[in-house]
């Protein structure tokens, strides 16, 4: 399946912070075919560092999408049955307007003059895209981690447009621990002299700071066990300690590699803005009552968490599920066994595939009346 990223442009988008962005570009991809009844559309929502290229092989560089193991013919999101859409989030750096985009007012990249955005701003932009594609109702909105936040926001903000929601490994509000890790990442970027107050476009980007931020991120995505299995205390291409600060251990080599790789494809300012949007995310709007937040929700839910995910622990999913159950909403929940930590929704997909497929099929039957 060779795919191509497409682009849509919208005149303006009003943001939660009070500012208005105009115009706004959105990068998106679609897979499969929309049926005549327009009842088989699924919106996939990507996590922190994802992009519109969720599935298939990119025409540009031949690379597979970030959830290619879940989306495609015969897969969990079966593109023979469903029409699947995925777009890059607002504030991103992969084709959708973000801090690295050109500010039409100045003719230069926004940098820190880009307004601070929220998860609901991201969702409002996705809604404009979905409208422009003529999708009146979405059979499902689904995403993991920050994608799960967007799925929840969709169900709450547009209850009439969402038949089902599948939030995976996520939370209805960022916890102190999640905010803390994001802040470490931001501080690493801002401590890099090359960051230059966010004004580094056309110059040397803050690669060191961004790489360190990503290293911290990767630690939080894994589990103690997955790191033990993957690296243990193995040394990297040496028999004994180097007694210096070059790479000794495999785990160091891995983190450095992932850090430097990330720098090539991600913008440091996007890191700041998107992580801030996650920190601000609180479906209860500070009231603390998820039940109130979900009161108008009509979607049926499949909530998934993973046993070894300590970044988005299961209790956060249970909180979502219990609030929905208190309202008698149709909600299925499973904590899947996995040793892969938060990464599980991307890599440990066997059981996830089984339940997503079944849930979608039964939802589709309800809609279709078949």
């Amino acid at each position, binding site marked *: 399946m060779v795919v191509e990223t497409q682009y849509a442009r919208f005149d303006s988008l009003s943001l939660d912070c009070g500012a208005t962005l105009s115009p706004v570009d959105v990068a998106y991809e679609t897979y499969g075919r929309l049926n005549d009844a327009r009842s088989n559309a699924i919106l996939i929502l990507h996590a922190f560092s994802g992009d519109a290229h969720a599935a298939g092989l990119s025409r540009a560089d031949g690379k597979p999408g970030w959830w290619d193991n879940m989306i495609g013919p015969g897969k969990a999101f079966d593109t023979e049955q469903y029409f699947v859409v995925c777009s890059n989030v607002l504030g991103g750096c992969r084709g959708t307007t973000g801090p690295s985009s050109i500010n039409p007012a100045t003719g230069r990249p926004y940098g820190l003059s880009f307004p601070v955005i929220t998860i609901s701003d991201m969702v409002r932009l996705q809604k404009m895209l979905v409208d422009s594609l003529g999708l009146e109702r979405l059979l499902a909105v689904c995403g993991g981690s920050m994608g799960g936040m967007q799925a929840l926001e969709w169900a709450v903000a547009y209850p009439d447009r969402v038949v089902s929601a599948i939030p995976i490994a996520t939370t209805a509000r960022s916890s102190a621990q999640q905010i803390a890790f994001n802040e470490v990442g931001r501080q690493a970027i801002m401590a890099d002299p090359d960051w230059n107050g966010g004004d580094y476009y056309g110059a040397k980007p803050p690669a060191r700071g961004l790489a360190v931020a990503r290293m911290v991120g990767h630690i939080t995505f894994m589990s103690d066990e997955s790191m033990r299995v993957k690296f243990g205390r193995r040394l990297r291409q040496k028999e004994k300690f180097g007694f210096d600060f070059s790479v000794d251990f495999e785990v160091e080599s891995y983190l450095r590699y992932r850090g430097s790789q990330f720098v090539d494809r991600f913008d440091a300012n996007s890191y700041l803005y998107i992580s801030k949007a996650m920190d601000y995310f609180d479906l209860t709007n500070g009231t603390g009552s998820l039940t109130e937040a979900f009161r108008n929700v009509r979607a049926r839910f499949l909530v998934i968490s993973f046993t070894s995910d300590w970044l988005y622990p299961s209790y956060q999913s249970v909180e979502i599920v219990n609030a929905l*159950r208190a309202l008698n909403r*149709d*909600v*299925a*929940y*499973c*904590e899947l066994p996995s040793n892969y930590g938060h990464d599980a929704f991307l890599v440990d997909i066997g059981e996830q595939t089984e*339940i997503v497929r*079944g849930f979608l099929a039964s939802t589709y*039957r309800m809609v279709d009346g078949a």
Partner: protein
Amino acid sequence: MKGSSDSRRRPFVREILGRSDFAIIGEWIEQGARVLDLGCGEGELLEWLAQNKQVEARGIEIDSRKVQRAIARGVSVYHGDIDQGLSDYPDESFDYIILSQTLQETRRPLHVLREMLRVGRRAIVAFPNYGHWSVRLSLLLRGRAPVTRCFPYQWYDSPNIHFLTIRDFQELARREAWTIEREIFLSGHYSGRLLANLLAEVGVFLIRK
């Protein structure tokens, strides 16, 4: 409090009843009712009720593998235990709460039953009868903890922690002022009322507050 985490548990009733427990419960539950099955396993009963009675089906199950199978067949199941699982529901959220073959395994059976009758307008409770003659005889003659068809476990290996007879349940219902709307006593392919506490291997009750 446990759901059915043990793969040996629920199927044994099926052995005795064939699939007739579906039929019994199916007969008691009206079209379109809201039903919650506690310890629903892989959701077979709920799927059957959804298809044949168009009920709004929900389940609670503690075993991850079974939850996955239930969700895969399209049944909305909550992965959790029965005790915690009920407390979040408002009063009278369901028309029927089903507890099949799990009462004797719960840590606080009376609490579970009261919660069922809070969350549901009616409860359907099925349990193996500890008063069956084979149990009595086993203890009397062998002087050992009974191992029978309905209680197939050695004492050290049993999930059952609260043993009750049909008469015990009827007594409890009287004491708690629950109305027993229907009761059915089963043994093999036999069902009848005669000497139920001695002859029945399984009792199935429909109760309300």
